[in-house]
């Protein structure tokens, strides 16, 4: 590499903590599962400056002389994408109102929370961190890259225009129902949401009519601006919903207002799989070890992911950390396979299906030239009990190494592993948590 390039790299390092990885790295010898193509035995993945440069059989990829050659054993996959998590101790809307689109979760995330390191230990490299489900709309979600960082800005994903990647979190059913000003019924829940979206439609129309003329623009309104992003299809609505009728309500509202929606949890999705497929709504499903615990989840089934898959629905499994532990992300997928989800769909669920649900499929979710160099090295078959995450890489940088005792502590637990961790468990049963978040 010419020196000038190297210097440029150093400069970049100074201005951006998401620094370029200057020296190419070649991962050699693993079974490579690119997701976008069939698995490659004894494969090579070449990464440079945080991007995948080449993927192929060992003999088919030219490794530059200056590259760091890493002979690895195991299974190499794209970094995992978790479409629904609460790591980082962030909080969304407060108790003042059921609809709070102005609230940004990323203003409150502690990047030093061990929950992030545990997610890295689980092979997760991209994560949708969301506010809770105790509101009809609890705020803006944020899509993070689990880079090692000192401030939330180090982890954000920005579009070409600098826009921060994220979506909107909504919920229906019992979690968001309580005493006024919150709704007490499902009918009221839908009416409140519709009222707010109608307002946003009007706000958006005013903005459009202004045609960029500052004199004619309505005063800035953080709430309306956020909802307009959903109406414009720029932000996806991530909608918590369990019961079959609640699922249909979400689809009805999405159709009325034209927002893009990903259904989350979808415990009774197996009852309305055809309707979900017809609406082309992707589903982000949770894998829980037993049904119940709350009324809306008594018909939760391990078969849900498989039923939805066979109906033609795009499915991802999420952690909902701390409902399940990010370190058990692979296990959740294996349990879905146990319930009838195909292995192929489970591999996509870990990676590209989730990426699509976050509009990030052009950057993450597969190992292809030009994609972010986010990698997970597994010790063996992704769905086997004994398999562990050996290494996790984000944009060409190692963020987890099981051979490092500090990282291993986060992977298996033990004294100090959870120091400072704020766990979001949606219930009043654990320390420091509010009910029904």
């Amino acid at each position: 590499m010419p020196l000038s390039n190297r210097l440029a790299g150093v400069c970049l390092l100074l201005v951006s903590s998401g620094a370029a990885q200057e020296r190419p790295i070649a991962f050699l010898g693993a079974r490579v599962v690119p997701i976008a193509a069939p698995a490659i035995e004894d494969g090579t993945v070449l990464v440079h400056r945080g991007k995948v440069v080449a993927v192929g059989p060992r003999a088919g990829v030219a490794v530059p002389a200056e590259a760091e050659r890493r002979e690895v054993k195991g299974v190499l996959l794209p970094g995992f994408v978790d479409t629904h998590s609460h790591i980082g101790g962030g909080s969304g809307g407060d108790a003042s109102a059921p609809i709070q689109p102005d609230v940004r979760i990323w203003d409150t995330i502690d990047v030093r929370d061990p929950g992030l390191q545990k997610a890295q230990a689980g092979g997760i490299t991209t994560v949708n961190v969301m506010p809770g489900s105790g509101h009809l709309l609890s705020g803006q979600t944020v899509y993070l890259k689990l880079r090692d960082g000192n401030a939330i800005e180090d982890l954000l994903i920005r579009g070409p225009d600098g826009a921060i990647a994220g979506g909107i979190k909504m919920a229906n059913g019992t979690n968001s129902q309580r005493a006024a000003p919150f709704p007490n019924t499902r009918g009221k829940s839908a009416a409140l949401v519709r009222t707010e979206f109608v307002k946003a439609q009007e706000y958006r129309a005013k903005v459009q009519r202004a045609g960029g003329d500052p004199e004619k623009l309505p005063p800035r309104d953080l709430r309306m601006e956020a909802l307009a992003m959903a109406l414009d299809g720029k932000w996806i609505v991530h909608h918590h919903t369990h019961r079959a009728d609640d699922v249909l309500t979400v689809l009805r509202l999405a159709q009325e207002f034209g927002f893009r929606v990903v259904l989350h949890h979808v415990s009774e999705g197996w009852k309305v799989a055809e309707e979900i497929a017809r609406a082309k709504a992707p589903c982000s499903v949770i894998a829980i070890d037993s049904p119940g615990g709350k009324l809306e989840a008594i018909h939760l089934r391990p078969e849900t992911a498989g039923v939805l898959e066979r109906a033609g629905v795009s499915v991802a499994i999420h952690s909902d950390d701390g409902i399940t532990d990010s370190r058990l992300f692979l296990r959740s997928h294996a349990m879905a396979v146990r319930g009838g989800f195909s292995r192929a769909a489970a591999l996509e669920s870990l990676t590209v299906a989730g990426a699509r649900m976050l509009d990030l499929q052009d950057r993450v979710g597969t190992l292809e030239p030009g994609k972010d160099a986010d990698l997970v090295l597994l010790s063996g078959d992704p769905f086997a009990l004994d398999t562990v995450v050996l290494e996790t890489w984000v944009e060409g940088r190692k963020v987890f190494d099981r051979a490092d005792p500090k990282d291993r502590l986060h992977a298996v637990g033990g004294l100090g592993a959870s120091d400072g961790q704020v766990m979001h468990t949606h219930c009043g049963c654990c320390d420091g948590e509010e009910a029904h978040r």
Partner: protein
Amino acid sequence: MSAPRHLGIGVALGVLCGAPLAAQVAVRGELVHTMAGPALRDAVVLVRDGKIVAVGPAAEVRIPEGYEVLTAKVVTPGLIDARATAGLAGWLNQDHDKDEVDPAEAVQPELRAIDAYNPREPLVAWLREHGVTTLHTGHAPLALVSGQTFVVKTSEDALAGAVLKPAAMVACTLAGSARGEGGKSPGTRAKMIAMLRAALLDAREHMAKQAKATADKPVERSLRKETLGAVLKGEVPLLIHAQRQEDILAALRLQEEFGFRLVLDGAAEGYLVADRLLAAKVPVVVHATMLRHTGDARNASFETAAKLRDRGIPVHFQSGYEGYVPRTRVVLFEAALAAAHGFGREQALRALTLDAATLLGVQDRIGSLAPGKDADLALYDGDPFEYTSHCTGVLIDGKVVSRTVR
């Protein structure tokens, strides 16, 4: 294996009693973990009238005419959950089915599990369908002394006859979850110990009075003191839920003072005080491997079970207590993750069967596949611990209670 001899006796009895052979079941497995010896390849477990009559290689055990033959890749004894709350805790998680704790008082050892357990609870069916045939279940670790536990088969008609031990242990909690709500005592850990000591001293005094009582001068009965008296007499162990090392040490201190039989439940930080646990010969029912590593369990590890076992401490597995989702954990899954974190599959299976039966004092009935034992079996289509295996059949007392693929 003396299987053919036992088979002969079984058949002879059948002929003598004229029992309908159609109702009888044999289970043939590619791999049968008897836990009474090495695992057998291509073996048969022959069942008659609820009991195992023969176990041996398929070539040696003749299956009589008219038997239903179930087949499986792997056959194990029915699994035993060494500490559950399912059946008292229900899946709706509403007042209707929340019977795992009565918050009125901190110390209520008189609450019996048998009076609160619903054998038709869907969570119990869920566990059964995964191969769990026996639960040590009872009051939850949510009060200083929350009540009793009992040992019961997971059959739907359990209360009509499948109770193995109506009063197994008394459940005690030395953890944050034992704190009283709304200013009620105990509000601190020291208060927990003070209240527990006072209750045990009361019971001791009551026992002394009882010993001196005569027919014309009887002692007023107290269910509470009698129950704790049974603990002090060593008839019933005190099952103390403690996760933090200081709480574990407090439990050991109490045991030293009062001399009861202690079983430790949880022990998330047990690896910090393993020497003391070993010296006190305390068996541990280790926390569910996947319990949330937060609060008192913030230093929990997937490796706790292996670390304690490696020090020579008897380790058992539990589904434990959950206040939200999953409302119950599945002990098979919890043991599986521990198995993958140093405990080993063979040892984990032993812990879920023979060792759990021994801990609960029911090893003469369950925990292994041998002639004379209850015919409680679990059938799997692969290694029972693998995530992607399924439980394909379950027998309790010789009856097929599940054919669900789970």
